[in-house]
């Protein structure tokens, strides 16, 4: 009876038209495959946020539908089609790898369905898209942070390691080079790798010959771990700086002692969590998983929070909570959303403007160094 009453009450709230219903959010993540750590950590954060709140003010229930794309572009595109045609989702959340998000974005755009990626940082993901938004900063900013940090620490000669297979890495390398040379640094060599490669001895030799002050690695953690290990094995002592694709426990597990001193830019470090939202999240995360909260999970939770806040605005405007146009407009107009990873404002391109942190591996842990504002 009480349930019935609450449904009626909710129904009345919402202009008396609709009964409480399920609103579906489709989540596309690499839950298996080479970059599975991205998907697994994102899902963990998302679950914390979901458990905290999955009922809208009009009584509608949020349902998350997970699809695993195995970290593959083609699978990611198929996943979006399935979510749209079969599950009829209102919003799509995902992916992590920019290449995969780029495969998904045109489909969401064509179907006029709002899509929010929590962690894809390549500018082209949202470029020219009206329905694609992101909860993270973009690579030109991240690349500039990397460059500035290296230059501020007196490292004037850099070798850039680019993963030729990943749009993320190609874009980030470009951004880094631009900011680094503009700041007075010199790029002495660019070395190419492929995600999935395991032997980097030849690249390490090339790096060794170039003798740089810093190695700017723009790829993902599986390659970062093996590259830094092989570099240290071959006597290369040059420090590494990476970005948000490397800060995963696997980096330390695989590379071991070789990972010491690896610096990288990231979206979030729990040591820098000062806002009530962040503190609450970190506490819940520790309680549920008994380990440190990482940035992917925090970003996913923020993306989820932004979707919910957009839906609430739609309800206030007297529209249905699953009105795609309305959700999209409100998502794109997000201003000063108090997220776990900081205050998020979406600019005219659909990109989040927010601060970055710089971390460093020390004694096998990710130590917070500094925060850089846009």
């Amino acid at each position, binding site marked *: 009876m009480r349930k019935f009453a609450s449904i009626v009450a909710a129904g009345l709230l919402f202009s008396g038209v609709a009964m409480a219903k399920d609103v579906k959010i489709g989540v596309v993540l690499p839950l298996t495959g080479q970059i599975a750590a991205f998907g697994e950590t994102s899902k963990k954060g998302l679950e914390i946020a979901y458990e905290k709140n999955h009922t809208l003010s009009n009584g509608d229930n949020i349902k998350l539908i997970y699809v695993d794309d195995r970290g593959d572009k083609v699978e990611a595109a198929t996943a979006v089609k399935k979510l749209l045609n079969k599950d009829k989702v209102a919003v799509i959340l995902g992916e992590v790898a920019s290449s995969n998000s780029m495969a998904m974005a045109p489909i969401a755009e064509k179907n006029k369905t709002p899509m929010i990626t929590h962690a894809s940082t390549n500018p082209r993901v949202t470029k020219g898209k009206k329905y694609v938004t992101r909860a993270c900063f973009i690579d030109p900013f991240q690349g500039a942070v990397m460059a500035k940090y290296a230059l501020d620490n007196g490292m004037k000669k850099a070798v850039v390691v680019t993963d030729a297979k990943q749009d993320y890495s190609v874009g980030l390398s470009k951004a880094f080079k631009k900011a680094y040379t503009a700041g007075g640094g010199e790029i002495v060599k660019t070395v190419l790798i492929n995600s999935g490669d395991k032997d980097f001895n*030849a690249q390490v030799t090339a790096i060794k010959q170039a003798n740089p002050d810093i190695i700017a690695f723009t790829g993902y953690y599986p390659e970062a*771990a093996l590259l830094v290990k092989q570099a240290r094995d071959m006597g290369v002592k040059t420090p590494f700086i990476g970005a948000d694709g490397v800060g995963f426990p696997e980096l330390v597990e695989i590379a071991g002692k070789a990972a010491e001193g690896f610096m990288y830019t990231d979206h979030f470090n729990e040591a820098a969590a000062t806002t009530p939202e962040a503190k609450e999240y970190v506490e819940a995360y520790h309680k549920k998983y008994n380990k440190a909260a990482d940035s992917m999970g925090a970003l996913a939770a923020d993306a989820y929070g932004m979707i919910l806040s957009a839906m609430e605005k739609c309800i206030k405007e007297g529209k249905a909570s699953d009105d795609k146009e309305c959700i999209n407009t409100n998502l794109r107009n997000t201003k000063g959303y108090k997220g776990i990873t900081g205050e998020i404002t979406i600019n005219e391109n659909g990109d989040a403007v927010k601060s970055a942190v710089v971390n460093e591996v020390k004694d096998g842990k990710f130590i917070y160094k500094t925060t850089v504002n846009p």
Partner: protein
Amino acid sequence: MDMQIFLQQLINGASLGSMYALIAIGYTMVYGVLRLINFAHGDIMMVGAFLTYFGMESGLSFELAALLGIIGAAIVGILTDRIAYRPLRDAPKISLLITAIGISFFLENLFTVLFGATPKAFKAPEYITKVFHIGEIYLPISVIIIPTITLIILAIVLYILYKTKYGMAIRALAFDIKTVKLMGIDADKIIMIVFMIGSALAAIGGIFYAISYPSIDPLMGVIVGLKAFAAAVLGGIGSVTGAVIGGFILGFTEILVVALFPELGGYKDAFAFFFLILVLLFKPTGIMGQDLERGRF
């Protein structure tokens, strides 16, 4: 490039080539007796590496865990033959090939479901991974050990093939299965031995691979398996010595391309396969290969 770095790359190439060679031997032997390209072979290598990893995780010493990995992989190899290939002995070759692809997917996905797809850190003991340096050359001990063991294994395999009764039976099978059966030889048993040897070698290759690149995942066998297959074709499929030569050539090509043209490092696989095509254009049967329809080792 100066001499020292060249030398270092040469040793790296030998080490990488050894792993391809070990896996290529299994491809080539199975092809020799069954005319089957056993696409699941790369995954057997993965099984070997994973079993070793789990052995060490459960507290065994590296040596015991490696032994467990090798025996386990050999058993999995025998089982795939018993369960999937033997019932199809008289079926068209294409059915057998498709079954092999099926087994490959099955093993990859089984391990993904059971143990997750996240790469796991393979912790080899210090005495193998230790790095020493002579002048400018830095070498992990493994790059010396791996080619040495590979050559010893090659000698053993050749001994078995040419000096033992089983070896004679294997070579006879490669010529003509039906006649061999008429001679009262248990062909299925001999084929089982071929799978056992091939899978055990693949497991050794897998363990070496895990020592050199200490991150293992259920899909690690895919590309390595493909390259080892290319090595077997390059050397002349059906020939064990050819497989080893093919493996070393492929290893050297890959390493040297990146060493000479670091800017093209991202395309090293393309170069390796381009080289394969080039050799096959001039010698379609591979380096050591003869007429494909005549069995030999």
